[in-house]
């Protein structure tokens, strides 16, 4: 670290919760009825971060490759279940497997490439680098696939007549859904592309902010930020393309007939 990090004391931390109280005051006053969710969210956030803080201290101190891999595996499992929860449409077993497979494949390939080729980390499993980078890659890929699943399922539902119309003419399912698949891919990757546009002007991204707060030179921080943004873009694209290429198949049976997800 290049500089001294300002520590936040206990009472200073407590004082930050005034923002939550302020929000609670507003929703109660206006009878919006969100008190419970806000309280739970604030408590969960605190508890989860405290826990993860201690876990990370342990993992960082141990510096064991197995533990780093285990941590990433847990992250991926959590991401997969989070996608299932986020998507409101019912998903069949095949689609769930495709979701898990695409995030697993896409995020891991991108992460490995990023660690070995882009930042050439030595040793490759250095948890202080690998875990935060994996978190950003997996987290963004999770959002991308959630959007992909949603747009694919909505498209299949709304364009049902067109899909069947194409099948009636002897189209392969792949041909019949080509536009829907392309549009799902586009909708899922667009937020990542858009976020790059505002970066540095509208907001300073989290990782860069974190590094600057810990005293790293902004010039070093932007190097990392640019690299990680490109890594995220690659991972989101890879996960989503793998998902849509295989995902549409879950909507058809072996007789090339549309099946219901319900």
């Amino acid at each position: 670290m290049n500089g001294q990090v300002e520590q936040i004391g206990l009472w200073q931390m407590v004082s930050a919760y005034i923002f939550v109280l302020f929000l609670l005051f507003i929703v109660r006053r206006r009878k919006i009825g969100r008190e419970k969710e806000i309280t739970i969210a604030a408590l969960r956030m605190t508890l989860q971060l405290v826990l993860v803080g201690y876990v990370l201290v342990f993992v960082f101190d141990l510096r064991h490759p197995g533990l780093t891999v285990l941590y990433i595996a847990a992250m991926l499992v959590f991401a997969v279940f989070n996608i299932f929860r986020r998507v409101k449409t019912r998903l069949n077993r095949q689609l769930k497997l495709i979701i898990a497979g695409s995030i697993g494949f896409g995020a891991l390939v991108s992460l490995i490439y990023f660690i070995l080729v882009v930042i050439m980390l030595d040793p490759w499993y250095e948890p202080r680098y690998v875990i935060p980078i994996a978190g950003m890659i997996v987290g963004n890929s999770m959002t991308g696939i959630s959007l992909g699943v949603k747009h694919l399922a909505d498209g299949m539902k709304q364009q049902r007549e067109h899909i069947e119309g194409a099948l009636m003419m002897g189209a392969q399912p792949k041909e019949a859904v080509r536009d829907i698949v392309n549009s799902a891919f586009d909708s899922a990757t667009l937020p990542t592309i858009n976020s790059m546009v505002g970066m540095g002007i509208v907001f300073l991204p989290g990782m860069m902010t974190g590094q600057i707060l810990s005293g790293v030179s902004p010039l070093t921080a932007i190097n990392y930020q640019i690299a990680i943004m490109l890594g995220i873009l690659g991972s989101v694209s890879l996960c989503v393309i793998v998902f849509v290429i295989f995902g549409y198949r879950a909507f058809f049976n072996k007789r090339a007939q549309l099946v219901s997800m319900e």
Partner: protein
Amino acid sequence: MAAMPHEEGVQPGKEVFRQKHWGRAVMDEHKLYQLNGVVYKDILDIPELDIPENKVTCIYGESGAGKSTLLRLLNHLLSPDSGSISLRGVDISGMDPIELRRRVLMLPQNPLVYPGSIRDNLNIGIRFSGRKHCPGDHALKEVLDTSSLNKPLDTDAKTLSGGEKQRLALARLFLLDPEVLLLDEPSASLDGATERTVIANAVTYAKEQRKSLIMVSHAQHLVDEFGEAVVELARGTVSRSGKGGSP
């Protein structure tokens, strides 16, 4: 995804179908189709049905009688829960569904128009049918003539009227040169005169090209005018089958 009772048949283990006992399929070289027992979630229950080759067969009946379901079964968009369907004596359940649909084309009730020109809309059928080469403008104009759509190929398909869209959709099928043409009430949303034109075009095409045409309708006068064979469906079963009115 919205619940579509039809698709439930493809999910084993769900008891949405009534099991029935069926007779043995009778093979008959002269008949195009044999429907030997079809149950479709109480929609269809047909002990046996033969549809003649190279004729215009009208499937007639009230809405909800199972007419469209019957067509979808023939196009293999749906599979019967029990019993069998044969095309020229061959059980379609053993055929590649895509290959079958390329031989037995179906026109849906609402005309499907894709973004782009009339030419694009005709060519998309070629793409769907797996052919590599799009026909030239001359061939495209010819099918438009057959379908009585006199519009330049560059016309934006979105600007066409309902009847014109249906004629475009029909022309797209003509271009694919099917063995069997299934029309699912092609005129439901059209006015009387347009309705007749669309059907008359399909019938003329079928007669000239010696194709089998199977057409769903709930309009008695159209059935009387065009139907060489009539299958009347009522409450999911064949209530009358035989020759129609004046051929």
